[in-house]
């Protein structure tokens, strides 16, 4: 092939002219790409929205930013152990306080909750994870203020309890009703005591609404013979940033102050939720795979068709002295143009659709009810703007189109000029 100076500008305007000439084909292919990208943007926005809101609700109401546990605790968490405890909570609290970190101790324990007919509509028993809290400190770590539907928080030293609103509804519970709590103390004997419902709690986190049973920590300490030990210390960091970086100094501190304990971030604490989220993300990637597939079939079909229909044109171009490379470039420009157009169209459609999804969302209440789907959100799915995805979409539309066009163009260029010109 003779070394000719590449006339990029010329080839570009040539490609644009061709695109304008075949307006309909350009539009059809571009809209196929746009449709695929719209799907991607819609689902990406929705899943990311649910993820982000879940994360926030997880941190604000369930796990805090991070938590200190006895090193043995996490592995045995399924058994809600009260034997793997933090034995020097005051010392740790003070050390955290010195560093201006908000922290609150809790005792989480498993119990059989027993209720009897009158005042309840039916007798029954139910397994619950109950928690003893230090309310002053707890409200600094968790966003529980103003979340009471009715009543008040329990007072220290009183046998009182706040329960989640969904749980209350299931039991038919109201303020003033008694609950019998049957559990085992730290050294194994059975302990049974009564508490009175003084408040009913609703948060944006359904898991909390479904399972909360919150009583004063001093009562729990006394009943379970904890002797001042707690099962966990929760912490809240004022800004949501790179959690691992924020955690490093605290991990070091804990290693110094109480080496039998460890610090876990909300990412580990919410692992079950995150596992589900990652499975959902796999779903997203398969949708992206499908989008690729459509774009692939759509674009390659168009390119094949157009190259096939335009054999004569290619022959003419080559006969008039255009090099194979130039023909290739001009066709790639065309493919890129279609891809770009499709990408932009997809983004515009995506912005339109997500505008609704971000501001209104879809209400899944009738579908989901009170079922546990892993997400920590109320049943209205709202999207958020994931800006990088929009750039990615345009890039994907463009890049993919060009990539797919290479093969058929090369094939067409292998045919001799005379044969091209002879074509029907």
């Amino acid at each position, binding site marked *: 092939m003779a070394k000719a100076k590449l006339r990029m500008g010329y080839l570009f305007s040539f490609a644009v002219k061709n695109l304008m*000439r*075949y*307006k*309909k*084909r350009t539009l*059809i*292919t571009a809209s*196929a790409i746009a*449709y*695929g990208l719209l*799907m991607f943007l819609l689902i990406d926005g929705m899943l990311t929205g649910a993820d982000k809101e879940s994360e926030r609700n997880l941190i604000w109401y369930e796990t805090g930013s991070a938590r200190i546990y006895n090193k043995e605790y996490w592995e*045995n968490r*399924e*058994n*809600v*152990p*009260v*034997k*793997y405890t933090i034995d020097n909570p005051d010392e740790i609290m003070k050390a955290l306080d010195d560093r201006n970190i908000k922290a609150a101790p809790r005792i989480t*324990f*498993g119990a*059989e909750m*027993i209720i*009897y007919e009158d005042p309840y509509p*039916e*007798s*029954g*028993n*139910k*397994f619950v994870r109950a928690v003893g809290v230090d309310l002053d400190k707890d409200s600094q770590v968790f966003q529980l203020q103003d979340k009471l539907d009715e009543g008040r928080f329990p007072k220290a030293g009183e046998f009182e309890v706040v329960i989640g609103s969904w749980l209350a509804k*299931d039991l038919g519970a109201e303020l003033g009703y008694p609950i019998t709590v*049957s*559990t*085992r103390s*730290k*050294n*194994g004997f*059975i302990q049974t005591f009564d508490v009175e419902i003084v408040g009913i709690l609703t948060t944006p986190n359904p898991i909390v609404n479904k399972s909360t049973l919150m009583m004063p920590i001093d009562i729990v300490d006394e009943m379970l013979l904890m002797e001042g030990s707690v099962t966990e210390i929760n912490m809240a960091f004022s800004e949501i940033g790179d959690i691992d970086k924020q955690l490093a100094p605290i991990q070091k501190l804990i290693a110094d102050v109480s080496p039998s304990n460890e610090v876990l971030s909300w990412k580990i604490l919410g692992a*079950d939720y995150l*596992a*589900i989220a990652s*499975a959902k993300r*796999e779903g997203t990637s398969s*949708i992206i795979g499908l989008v690729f*597939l*459509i774009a692939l*079939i*759509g674009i390659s*079909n*168009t390119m*094949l*068709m*157009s190259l*096939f229909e335009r054999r004569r044109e290619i022959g003419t171009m080559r006969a008039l002295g255009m090099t194979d490379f130039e023909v290739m470039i001009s066709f790639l420009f065309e493919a890129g143009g279609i891809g770009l157009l499709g990408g932009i169209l997809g983004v515009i459609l995506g912005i339109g659709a997500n505008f609704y999804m971000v501001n209104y969302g879809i209400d899944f209440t009738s*579908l*989901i*009810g009170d*079922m*546990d789907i*892993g997400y920590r959100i109320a049943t209205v799915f709202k999207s958020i703007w994931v800006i990088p995805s929009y750039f990615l979409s345009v890039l994907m539309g463009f890049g993919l189109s060009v990539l797919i066009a290479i093969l058929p163009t090369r094939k067409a260029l292998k045919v001799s000029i005379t044969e091209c010109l002879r074509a029907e």
Partner: protein
Amino acid sequence: MNTYVVAWRNIGRNKRRTALSAVAITVAAFGMVLLFSIIAGLSFEMQDNFVRYITGDILIEHEEFEKYQDINPLHFYVPDQEELIKKMEALEGVAHAFPRINFGGQLYSQASIGEFKRVSIFGFDPVAESDTMNMTSHLVPETNSQMPAANSREVIISEGLAKREGLKVGDKINLATMTVRRAAFQITMKISGIAYFDFSQMNEGIVFIPFDLAQYIVDYSGFDGAMSVNVVKKTNVERGDLEKQINDVLKTESAYQGITARAFENVSTIYSFLKMAEYIYYFMGLLFFLLASTVIINTTMMVIFERTREIGTLSALGMKGKEIVRLFFTEALIIAIIGSLVGVVIGTAMAIWLEPTGFDFKEAMQGVDFQISGMMKPKWNPVIAIFVLAAGIVVSSFAAYFPAKRASRIKPIEAMRKDY
């Protein structure tokens, strides 16, 4: 002129174009058949699991039980279960019936002081359920497992529980639970076997207890109570009919006041779960249908647009607009039929081929609490094939019809001059 003959000639004349659009339709139809089969398979498996392990075809229990099932309402029981089972099995449409008692409890031992080990207790009759649940076939062979001996305090535990607690055959477990009067009750039992189920719900922390022992524990023995009696129908009987028949029997007996029978579809908690799963499946199916349609529409429309000049020529040669539309429509229809047919046949073959083995999805399903096993087995049925065939043909011929109609309206001169 015979449109049909010309259409065939056109199809043969431009083989590559024909192949291109036919392949697009084939791929779409193939994908649809396979995906719909997988969806049907998932749906079927979930239902089958629920019927087999949880409810039976008809579930007989106290009418208040379901409402309060979250709070272990032991006091809503079915009395005289043996008598009831005899009555049920005397009915014509009933294959067999068996009793169940399910409740919660905790395991404890010296080592678990300071821990709260939750388990579910599944009281079942190994003999009566040998056809449906077939516990013997679920015993893990390497563990030297045996069925519990009669009148003993022997139990089977799920593999999940054995793993979690490091328990093996021959070990003893202590169970603490509550009787029907909510009195604390504790008992020591010996593990005779370990069982594994593909159905995740049956493989969590579960202790399988022979029915009479379960009766003893919750103190149902005095009145021969059961929490539910599950009825398995004969294959040629409708669940709805049997439900009605059983309820008629229950109504006549004063001893069974408050006891009702519900077909599997009417057990609302499970039904709503299945319903939601179905919605998700439909949504997945719809999404894929739309995607597949875009491929078909895109290709077919493109073919017509590319041939605008040809339409102009035909028009100039005196062919009427209607005839042109008919010609192009016939062409598209033939390609659509061939493409869809081939796709449906390949998809069907693939689905049927995969039906016994299935895809292994265990890895992708980890951490997802959905009541299906990790194997996805497609379940093909004729409705899927017919639907996809019809959808493929309708979508692609319509995709051809409208642009052809438009093109036929363009003046011949313009159609020939212009590059579309």
